[in-house]
Protein backbone atom coordinates (compact mmCIF):
# COMPACT_ATOMS: atom_id res chain seq x y z
CA UNK A 1 0.00 0.00 0.00
CA UNK A 2 1.39 3.41 -0.89
CA UNK A 3 1.56 6.15 1.69
CA UNK A 4 -0.91 8.18 -0.29
CA UNK A 5 -3.55 5.48 -0.05
CA UNK A 6 -2.95 5.09 3.67
CA UNK A 7 -3.64 8.72 4.32
CA UNK A 8 -6.55 9.08 1.94
CA UNK A 9 -8.44 6.27 3.58
CA UNK A 10 -11.68 7.43 5.18
CA UNK A 11 -15.09 5.94 5.84
CA UNK A 12 -18.40 7.37 4.69
CA UNK A 13 -18.22 9.65 7.64
CA UNK A 14 -14.95 11.59 7.98
CA UNK A 15 -15.02 10.99 11.73
CA UNK A 16 -15.00 7.18 11.36
CA UNK A 17 -11.96 5.50 12.92
CA UNK A 18 -9.30 4.17 10.57
CA UNK A 19 -8.11 0.59 11.00
CA UNK A 20 -5.15 0.23 13.35
CA UNK A 21 -2.09 -0.64 11.27
CA UNK A 22 0.33 -3.34 12.48
CA UNK A 23 2.71 -1.95 15.09
CA UNK A 24 0.43 1.02 15.70
CA UNK A 25 -1.56 1.75 18.84
CA UNK A 26 -4.26 4.14 17.61
CA UNK A 27 -6.81 4.64 14.87
CA UNK A 28 -5.39 8.06 14.11
CA UNK A 29 -3.70 9.75 11.20
CA UNK A 30 -1.15 11.56 13.33
CA UNK A 31 0.44 8.31 14.47
CA UNK A 32 0.40 7.03 10.87
CA UNK A 33 2.28 10.07 9.59
CA UNK A 34 4.96 9.80 12.28
CA UNK A 35 5.41 6.05 12.07
CA UNK A 36 5.63 6.24 8.27
CA UNK A 37 8.69 8.41 8.85
CA UNK A 38 7.24 11.63 7.47
CA UNK A 39 8.24 14.94 8.97
CA UNK A 40 5.08 16.07 10.79
CA UNK A 41 3.54 19.37 11.82
CA UNK A 42 1.26 19.87 14.77
CA UNK A 43 -0.26 23.12 15.94
CA UNK A 44 -2.49 24.51 18.66
CA UNK A 45 -6.07 25.69 18.42
CA UNK A 46 -7.09 28.47 20.79
CA UNK A 47 -10.33 27.23 22.40
CA UNK A 48 -13.03 29.92 22.29
CA UNK A 49 -14.60 31.67 25.25
CA UNK A 50 -17.91 30.64 23.82
CA UNK A 51 -20.36 27.76 23.48
CA UNK A 52 -20.40 28.21 19.72
CA UNK A 53 -19.33 25.07 17.81
CA UNK A 54 -19.00 27.07 14.61
CA UNK A 55 -16.23 29.13 16.13
CA UNK A 56 -14.17 26.00 16.82
CA UNK A 57 -14.57 24.79 13.25
CA UNK A 58 -13.74 28.22 11.81
CA UNK A 59 -10.54 28.29 13.83
CA UNK A 60 -9.64 24.73 12.79
CA UNK A 61 -10.29 25.42 9.09
CA UNK A 62 -7.37 27.85 9.08
CA UNK A 63 -5.07 24.83 9.41
CA UNK A 64 -6.64 22.74 6.62
CA UNK A 65 -4.00 21.00 4.57
CA UNK A 66 -1.11 22.50 6.54
CA UNK A 67 -0.88 20.43 9.73
CA UNK A 68 -1.13 16.76 10.75
CA UNK A 69 -2.59 17.30 14.20
CA UNK A 70 -4.23 20.00 16.26
CA UNK A 71 -3.66 20.30 20.01
CA UNK A 72 -6.76 21.22 21.96
CA UNK A 73 -5.45 23.01 25.03
CA UNK A 74 -6.84 22.29 28.49
CA UNK A 75 -7.25 25.58 30.32
CA UNK A 76 -3.73 26.65 29.33
CA UNK A 77 -2.20 29.31 31.52
CA UNK A 78 -4.86 28.26 34.05
CA UNK A 79 -7.39 30.40 32.19
CA UNK A 80 -10.89 29.18 31.58
CA UNK A 81 -11.98 28.39 27.99
CA UNK A 82 -14.04 25.72 26.20
CA UNK A 83 -12.82 22.31 27.42
CA UNK A 84 -10.31 20.29 25.43
CA UNK A 85 -12.74 17.38 25.36
CA UNK A 86 -15.46 19.60 23.88
CA UNK A 87 -13.14 21.01 21.22
CA UNK A 88 -11.88 17.52 20.36
CA UNK A 89 -15.39 16.11 20.02
CA UNK A 90 -16.25 18.83 17.52
CA UNK A 91 -13.03 18.29 15.59
CA UNK A 92 -13.22 14.49 15.33
CA UNK A 93 -16.71 14.70 13.86
CA UNK A 94 -15.21 16.57 10.93
CA UNK A 95 -12.33 14.15 10.59
CA UNK A 96 -9.56 16.29 12.06
CA UNK A 97 -6.80 14.66 14.13
CA UNK A 98 -6.96 16.47 17.45
CA UNK A 99 -4.55 15.82 20.30
CA UNK A 100 -6.41 16.14 23.55
CA UNK A 101 -4.34 17.93 26.17
CA UNK A 102 -4.99 16.66 29.66
CA UNK A 103 -3.68 18.70 32.56
CA UNK A 104 -3.49 17.41 36.12
CA UNK A 105 -4.45 20.74 37.63
CA UNK A 106 -8.24 20.51 37.56
CA UNK A 107 -9.24 16.86 37.80
CA UNK A 108 -8.44 13.87 39.96
CA UNK A 109 -7.83 10.31 38.86
CA UNK A 110 -11.52 9.44 38.77
CA UNK A 111 -12.40 12.31 36.45
CA UNK A 112 -9.36 11.92 34.23
CA UNK A 113 -9.79 8.20 33.58
CA UNK A 114 -13.44 8.80 32.73
CA UNK A 115 -12.49 11.61 30.34
CA UNK A 116 -9.90 9.45 28.61
CA UNK A 117 -12.55 6.81 27.87
CA UNK A 118 -14.95 9.50 26.73
CA UNK A 119 -12.34 11.06 24.47
CA UNK A 120 -11.51 7.75 22.82
CA UNK A 121 -15.22 7.02 22.36
CA UNK A 122 -15.58 10.37 20.61
CA UNK A 123 -12.83 9.45 18.15
CA UNK A 124 -9.84 11.11 19.78
CA UNK A 125 -6.70 9.13 18.94
CA UNK A 126 -3.88 11.11 20.58
CA UNK A 127 -3.40 12.48 24.06
CA UNK A 128 -0.85 14.92 25.52
CA UNK A 129 -0.21 14.41 29.24
CA UNK A 130 0.70 17.61 31.10
CA UNK A 131 1.16 18.60 34.70
CA UNK A 132 -0.43 21.93 33.89
CA UNK A 133 0.11 25.53 34.93
CA UNK A 134 -0.63 26.44 38.52
CA UNK A 135 -3.97 28.09 39.28
CA UNK A 136 -2.15 31.13 40.66
CA UNK A 137 -1.10 32.29 37.17
CA UNK A 138 -4.61 32.16 35.67
CA UNK A 139 -7.84 34.07 35.84
CA UNK A 140 -9.25 32.02 38.75
CA UNK A 141 -6.40 32.11 41.29
CA UNK A 142 -8.89 31.34 44.07
CA UNK A 143 -9.57 27.86 42.61
CA UNK A 144 -8.48 24.68 44.34
CA UNK A 145 -5.47 23.10 42.59
CA UNK A 146 -5.91 19.33 42.28
CA UNK A 147 -2.64 17.78 41.04
CA UNK A 148 -3.67 14.26 42.05
CA UNK A 149 -1.29 13.10 39.27
CA UNK A 150 1.76 14.59 37.65
CA UNK A 151 2.44 14.25 33.92
CA UNK A 152 4.44 11.05 34.41
CA UNK A 153 1.85 9.24 36.52
CA UNK A 154 -0.78 10.43 34.04
CA UNK A 155 1.21 8.73 31.25
CA UNK A 156 1.35 5.56 33.35
CA UNK A 157 -2.40 5.77 33.78
CA UNK A 158 -3.12 6.07 30.05
CA UNK A 159 -0.84 3.11 29.48
CA UNK A 160 -2.65 1.06 32.11
CA UNK A 161 -6.03 1.84 30.57
CA UNK A 162 -4.82 1.15 27.03
CA UNK A 163 -2.44 -1.78 27.38
CA UNK A 164 -3.84 -3.54 30.42
CA UNK A 165 -7.45 -2.69 29.64
CA UNK A 166 -8.24 -1.80 33.24
CA UNK A 167 -8.74 1.17 35.55
CA UNK A 168 -6.09 1.90 38.16
CA UNK A 169 -8.42 0.20 40.61
CA UNK A 170 -8.03 -3.02 38.65
CA UNK A 171 -11.59 -3.05 37.34
CA UNK A 172 -11.61 -4.37 33.75
CA UNK A 173 -12.56 -2.33 30.69
CA UNK A 174 -14.70 -3.89 27.98
CA UNK A 175 -12.90 -1.87 25.33
CA UNK A 176 -9.62 -0.02 26.07
CA UNK A 177 -8.99 3.51 24.73
CA UNK A 178 -6.58 3.30 21.77
CA UNK A 179 -4.63 6.47 22.44
CA UNK A 180 -1.26 7.48 20.97
CA UNK A 181 0.53 8.81 24.03
CA UNK A 182 2.34 12.13 24.20
CA UNK A 183 4.01 14.40 26.72
CA UNK A 184 5.80 17.73 26.80
CA UNK A 185 9.49 18.48 27.20
CA UNK A 186 11.36 21.70 27.88
CA UNK A 187 15.06 21.44 27.08
CA UNK A 188 15.37 25.21 27.51
CA UNK A 189 14.84 25.56 31.27
CA UNK A 190 16.96 24.42 34.25
CA UNK A 191 18.13 21.90 35.27
CA UNK A 192 19.58 21.78 31.73
CA UNK A 193 21.76 18.74 32.32
CA UNK A 194 18.83 16.69 33.61
CA UNK A 195 16.22 17.64 31.05
CA UNK A 196 17.11 14.63 28.96
CA UNK A 197 16.81 12.39 32.06
CA UNK A 198 13.36 13.84 32.61
CA UNK A 199 12.55 13.04 28.96
CA UNK A 200 13.80 9.49 29.56
CA UNK A 201 11.39 9.14 32.49
CA UNK A 202 8.50 10.17 30.27
CA UNK A 203 9.53 7.62 27.64
CA UNK A 204 9.79 4.97 30.36
CA UNK A 205 6.28 5.90 31.48
CA UNK A 206 5.00 5.36 27.93
CA UNK A 207 5.41 8.58 25.90
CA UNK A 208 5.39 7.80 22.17
CA UNK A 209 5.70 11.40 21.05
CA UNK A 210 6.72 14.63 22.77
CA UNK A 211 6.17 18.27 21.91
CA UNK A 212 8.50 20.88 23.32
CA UNK A 213 8.16 24.34 24.78
CA UNK A 214 9.19 27.16 22.37
CA UNK A 215 12.62 26.61 20.89
CA UNK A 216 14.47 29.79 20.01
CA UNK A 217 17.93 28.38 20.63
CA UNK A 218 19.09 25.93 17.96
CA UNK A 219 22.33 25.07 19.73
CA UNK A 220 20.47 23.93 22.83
CA UNK A 221 18.06 21.90 20.71
CA UNK A 222 20.97 20.22 18.91
CA UNK A 223 22.68 19.32 22.14
CA UNK A 224 19.48 17.96 23.66
CA UNK A 225 18.74 15.83 20.61
CA UNK A 226 22.28 14.46 20.52
CA UNK A 227 21.98 13.34 24.14
CA UNK A 228 18.51 11.89 23.56
CA UNK A 229 19.87 9.98 20.59
CA UNK A 230 22.79 8.64 22.64
CA UNK A 231 20.36 7.35 25.25
CA UNK A 232 18.36 5.60 22.52
CA UNK A 233 15.23 7.59 23.35
CA UNK A 234 14.49 8.53 19.74
CA UNK A 235 13.94 4.89 18.85
CA UNK A 236 10.92 4.84 21.15
CA UNK A 237 9.61 8.35 20.93
CA UNK A 238 9.04 11.00 18.24
CA UNK A 239 10.19 14.53 19.04
CA UNK A 240 8.29 17.52 17.68
CA UNK A 241 10.21 20.67 18.62
CA UNK A 242 8.14 23.72 19.48
CA UNK A 243 8.36 26.81 17.29
CA UNK A 244 6.67 30.09 18.18
CA UNK A 245 5.68 33.04 16.02
CA UNK A 246 6.62 36.29 17.74
CA UNK A 247 4.61 39.37 16.81
CA UNK A 248 7.07 41.98 18.11
CA UNK A 249 10.02 42.58 20.40
CA UNK A 250 7.50 43.60 23.03
CA UNK A 251 5.70 40.24 22.90
CA UNK A 252 9.04 38.47 23.00
CA UNK A 253 10.09 40.37 26.12
CA UNK A 254 6.72 39.80 27.71
CA UNK A 255 6.86 36.05 27.00
CA UNK A 256 10.37 35.84 28.36
CA UNK A 257 9.49 37.76 31.52
CA UNK A 258 5.98 36.56 32.27
CA UNK A 259 6.01 32.90 31.21
CA UNK A 260 8.55 30.97 33.26
CA UNK A 261 10.38 28.35 31.21
CA UNK A 262 10.44 30.37 27.99
CA UNK A 263 13.99 31.11 26.85
CA UNK A 264 14.47 33.71 24.09
CA UNK A 265 18.06 34.71 23.26
CA UNK A 266 18.77 38.45 23.08
CA UNK A 267 19.78 38.29 19.45
CA UNK A 268 16.24 37.21 18.49
CA UNK A 269 14.79 40.15 20.41
CA UNK A 270 17.29 42.48 18.73
CA UNK A 271 16.29 41.21 15.30
CA UNK A 272 12.66 42.02 16.07
CA UNK A 273 13.56 45.45 17.45
CA UNK A 274 15.55 46.38 14.37
CA UNK A 275 13.06 45.03 11.85
CA UNK A 276 10.96 47.44 9.86
CA UNK A 277 8.05 45.01 9.88
CA UNK A 278 8.37 43.11 13.14
CA UNK A 279 5.43 40.81 12.42
CA UNK A 280 6.91 39.67 9.14
CA UNK A 281 10.29 39.30 10.85
CA UNK A 282 8.69 37.10 13.53
CA UNK A 283 7.35 34.82 10.81
CA UNK A 284 10.71 34.79 9.04
CA UNK A 285 12.35 33.73 12.30
CA UNK A 286 9.83 30.89 12.65
CA UNK A 287 10.52 29.74 9.09
CA UNK A 288 14.28 29.73 9.69
CA UNK A 289 13.95 27.88 12.99
CA UNK A 290 11.78 25.23 11.35
CA UNK A 291 14.32 24.70 8.59
CA UNK A 292 17.21 24.44 11.03
CA UNK A 293 15.33 22.12 13.36
CA UNK A 294 14.28 19.86 10.48
CA UNK A 295 17.97 19.30 9.74
CA UNK A 296 18.75 17.97 13.19
CA UNK A 297 19.19 14.22 13.04
CA UNK A 298 16.31 12.31 14.58
CA UNK A 299 13.83 15.20 14.58
CA UNK A 300 10.32 13.96 13.77
CA UNK A 301 8.47 17.21 13.34
CA UNK A 302 7.57 20.70 14.46
CA UNK A 303 4.93 21.84 16.92
CA UNK A 304 4.03 25.28 15.57
CA UNK A 305 2.43 27.63 18.08
CA UNK A 306 1.08 30.73 16.36
CA UNK A 307 -1.18 32.21 18.98
CA UNK A 308 -3.25 35.03 17.48
CA UNK A 309 -1.43 34.52 14.17
CA UNK A 310 -3.14 31.29 13.20
CA UNK A 311 -4.01 32.58 9.75
CA UNK A 312 -0.29 32.57 8.94
CA UNK A 313 0.30 28.90 9.76
CA UNK A 314 -0.20 27.75 6.16
CA UNK A 315 2.16 30.39 4.82
CA UNK A 316 4.87 29.62 7.39
CA UNK A 317 4.69 25.88 6.79
CA UNK A 318 4.80 26.33 3.02
CA UNK A 319 7.74 28.74 3.14
CA UNK A 320 9.72 26.47 5.43
CA UNK A 321 9.44 23.62 2.95
CA UNK A 322 9.82 21.08 5.76
CA UNK A 323 6.95 18.97 4.46
CA UNK A 324 8.77 18.55 1.14
CA UNK A 325 5.59 18.88 -0.86
CA UNK A 326 3.51 16.51 1.27
CA UNK A 327 0.01 17.86 1.91
CA UNK A 328 -1.49 16.82 5.25
CA UNK A 329 -4.97 15.33 5.17
CA UNK A 330 -7.85 17.68 5.91
CA UNK A 331 -11.65 17.39 5.84
CA UNK A 332 -11.85 19.88 2.97
CA UNK A 333 -9.64 17.53 0.98
CA UNK A 334 -12.23 14.77 1.54
CA UNK A 335 -15.14 16.94 0.36
CA UNK A 336 -13.07 17.77 -2.66
CA UNK A 337 -12.24 14.18 -3.59
CA UNK A 338 -15.89 13.13 -3.11
CA UNK A 339 -16.97 15.87 -5.48
CA UNK A 340 -14.46 14.75 -8.09
CA UNK A 341 -15.57 11.15 -7.64
CA UNK A 342 -19.20 12.14 -8.19
CA UNK A 343 -18.45 14.21 -11.25
Amino acid at each position, binding site marked *: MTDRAQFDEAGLNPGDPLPILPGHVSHGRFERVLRAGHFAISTEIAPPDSADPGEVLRRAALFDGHVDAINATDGSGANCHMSSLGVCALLTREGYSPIIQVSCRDRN*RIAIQGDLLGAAALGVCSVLCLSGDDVSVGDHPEAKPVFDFDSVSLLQTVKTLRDESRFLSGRKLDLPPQLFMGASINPF*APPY*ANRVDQFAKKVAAGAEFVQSQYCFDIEMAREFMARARDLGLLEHCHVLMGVGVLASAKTAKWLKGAIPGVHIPDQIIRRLEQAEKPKAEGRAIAVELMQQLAEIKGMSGIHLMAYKQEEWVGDIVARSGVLQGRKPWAPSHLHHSKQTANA
Partner: protein
Amino acid sequence: MYRVRLWSVRHSRKMEWLYATFNPMVVKLLRGTVKVFGNKLDKPITAVEAAAKGFFFDCKMCGDCALSKTGMSCPMNCPKTIRNGPCGGVRENGHCEVKPEMRCVWVAAWDGASRMKDGDAIKNVNFAVDHRAKGTSSWLKMARDD
Protein backbone atom coordinates in the same frame (compact mmCIF):
# COMPACT_ATOMS: atom_id res chain seq x y z
CA MET B 1 12.54 25.44 57.52
CA TYR B 2 13.53 26.60 54.05
CA ARG B 3 17.18 27.32 54.94
CA VAL B 4 17.66 23.95 56.62
CA ARG B 5 15.93 22.24 53.73
CA LEU B 6 18.46 23.75 51.31
CA TRP B 7 21.27 22.73 53.65
CA SER B 8 20.00 19.13 53.66
CA VAL B 9 20.04 19.02 49.86
CA ARG B 10 23.56 20.50 49.79
CA HIS B 11 24.62 17.77 52.17
CA SER B 12 22.58 15.07 50.47
CA ARG B 13 25.53 12.69 50.50
CA LYS B 14 25.83 12.96 54.27
CA MET B 15 22.06 12.76 54.70
CA GLU B 16 21.99 9.66 52.54
CA TRP B 17 24.66 8.09 54.73
CA LEU B 18 22.72 8.98 57.87
CA TYR B 19 19.57 7.61 56.33
CA ALA B 20 21.25 4.38 55.20
CA THR B 21 22.77 3.92 58.65
CA PHE B 22 19.93 4.88 60.91
CA ASN B 23 16.85 4.01 58.93
CA PRO B 24 17.29 0.21 59.29
CA MET B 25 17.91 0.73 63.02
CA VAL B 26 14.83 2.86 63.44
CA VAL B 27 12.73 0.41 61.47
CA LYS B 28 14.09 -2.52 63.47
CA LEU B 29 13.39 -0.73 66.74
CA LEU B 30 9.88 0.14 65.59
CA ARG B 31 9.24 -3.40 64.49
CA GLY B 32 9.87 -4.51 68.08
CA THR B 33 7.80 -1.64 69.46
CA VAL B 34 4.88 -2.46 67.21
CA LYS B 35 5.02 -6.10 68.30
CA VAL B 36 4.82 -5.15 71.96
CA PHE B 37 2.56 -2.10 71.91
CA GLY B 38 0.46 -2.65 68.80
CA ASN B 39 -0.69 0.72 67.55
CA LYS B 40 -0.74 2.36 71.00
CA LEU B 41 2.43 4.37 70.32
CA ASP B 42 1.59 5.35 66.73
CA LYS B 43 0.74 8.91 67.67
CA PRO B 44 3.97 9.85 69.46
CA ILE B 45 6.11 7.97 66.90
CA THR B 46 4.38 9.84 64.07
CA ALA B 47 4.91 13.11 65.93
CA VAL B 48 8.64 12.41 66.30
CA GLU B 49 8.95 11.58 62.60
CA ALA B 50 7.02 14.70 61.62
CA ALA B 51 9.21 16.89 63.83
CA ALA B 52 12.54 15.40 62.70
CA LYS B 53 11.79 15.27 59.00
CA GLY B 54 9.92 18.56 59.23
CA PHE B 55 13.03 20.24 60.60
CA PHE B 56 15.46 18.85 58.03
CA PHE B 57 13.31 18.58 54.91
CA ASP B 58 10.09 20.56 55.46
CA CYS B 59 8.46 17.12 55.28
CA LYS B 60 4.73 17.22 54.59
CA MET B 61 4.03 13.69 55.94
CA CYS B 62 2.61 12.36 52.67
CA GLY B 63 2.94 8.87 54.14
CA ASP B 64 4.97 7.60 51.19
CA CYS B 65 8.46 8.99 51.79
CA ALA B 66 10.48 9.51 48.61
CA LEU B 67 13.43 11.48 50.06
CA SER B 68 16.05 8.84 49.31
CA LYS B 69 14.90 8.81 45.68
CA THR B 70 14.63 12.58 45.26
CA GLY B 71 18.04 13.87 46.23
CA MET B 72 16.79 14.55 49.79
CA SER B 73 14.46 17.25 48.48
CA CYS B 74 10.87 16.59 49.57
CA PRO B 75 8.67 16.63 46.43
CA MET B 76 5.60 17.58 48.43
CA ASN B 77 7.05 21.09 48.77
CA CYS B 78 6.54 21.54 45.03
CA PRO B 79 3.39 23.68 44.70
CA LYS B 80 2.09 21.14 42.17
CA THR B 81 3.23 18.21 44.34
CA ILE B 82 4.98 16.76 41.29
CA ARG B 83 6.60 13.39 42.08
CA ASN B 84 8.57 13.18 38.82
CA GLY B 85 9.84 16.67 38.22
CA PRO B 86 10.56 19.31 37.41
CA CYS B 87 7.76 20.86 35.38
CA GLY B 88 8.52 22.96 32.32
CA GLY B 89 8.21 26.26 34.11
CA VAL B 90 11.46 26.47 36.06
CA ARG B 91 12.86 30.02 35.99
CA GLU B 92 16.22 30.85 34.46
CA ASN B 93 17.72 31.20 37.96
CA GLY B 94 16.49 27.73 38.93
CA HIS B 95 13.63 29.03 41.04
CA CYS B 96 10.03 27.86 41.06
CA GLU B 97 7.53 29.25 38.56
CA VAL B 98 4.81 29.43 41.18
CA LYS B 99 6.89 30.66 44.13
CA PRO B 100 9.67 32.80 42.65
CA GLU B 101 11.38 33.18 46.03
CA MET B 102 11.83 29.41 46.39
CA ARG B 103 14.43 27.26 44.65
CA CYS B 104 12.59 24.71 42.47
CA VAL B 105 12.21 21.59 44.55
CA TRP B 106 13.17 19.45 41.57
CA VAL B 107 16.21 21.49 40.57
CA ALA B 108 17.29 20.85 44.15
CA ALA B 109 16.36 17.18 43.82
CA TRP B 110 18.49 16.50 40.72
CA ASP B 111 21.30 18.48 42.29
CA GLY B 112 21.08 16.53 45.54
CA ALA B 113 20.85 13.22 43.68
CA SER B 114 24.04 14.00 41.75
CA ARG B 115 25.95 13.91 45.04
CA MET B 116 24.41 10.72 46.35
CA LYS B 117 25.79 7.21 46.03
CA ASP B 118 22.41 5.84 44.97
CA GLY B 119 21.40 9.09 43.33
CA ASP B 120 20.34 7.30 40.16
CA ALA B 121 17.19 6.20 41.99
CA ILE B 122 15.77 9.59 40.94
CA LYS B 123 15.58 8.24 37.38
CA ASN B 124 12.95 5.68 38.35
CA VAL B 125 9.36 6.56 37.68
CA ASN B 126 7.26 7.25 40.79
CA PHE B 127 3.54 6.73 40.76
CA ALA B 128 1.11 9.20 42.35
CA VAL B 129 0.73 9.09 46.13
CA ASP B 130 -2.08 7.33 47.92
CA HIS B 131 -3.93 10.24 49.52
CA ARG B 132 -5.27 8.06 52.30
CA ALA B 133 -1.75 7.83 53.72
CA LYS B 134 -1.45 11.58 54.33
CA GLY B 135 -0.40 12.33 57.89
CA THR B 136 0.69 8.77 58.61
CA SER B 137 4.20 7.62 59.44
CA SER B 138 6.46 6.25 56.69
CA TRP B 139 8.65 4.66 59.39
CA LEU B 140 5.75 2.70 60.83
CA LYS B 141 4.74 1.72 57.32
CA MET B 142 8.20 0.27 56.71
CA ALA B 143 8.15 -1.46 60.11
CA ARG B 144 4.79 -3.07 59.35
CA ASP B 145 5.35 -3.81 55.66
CA ASP B 146 7.84 -6.66 56.03
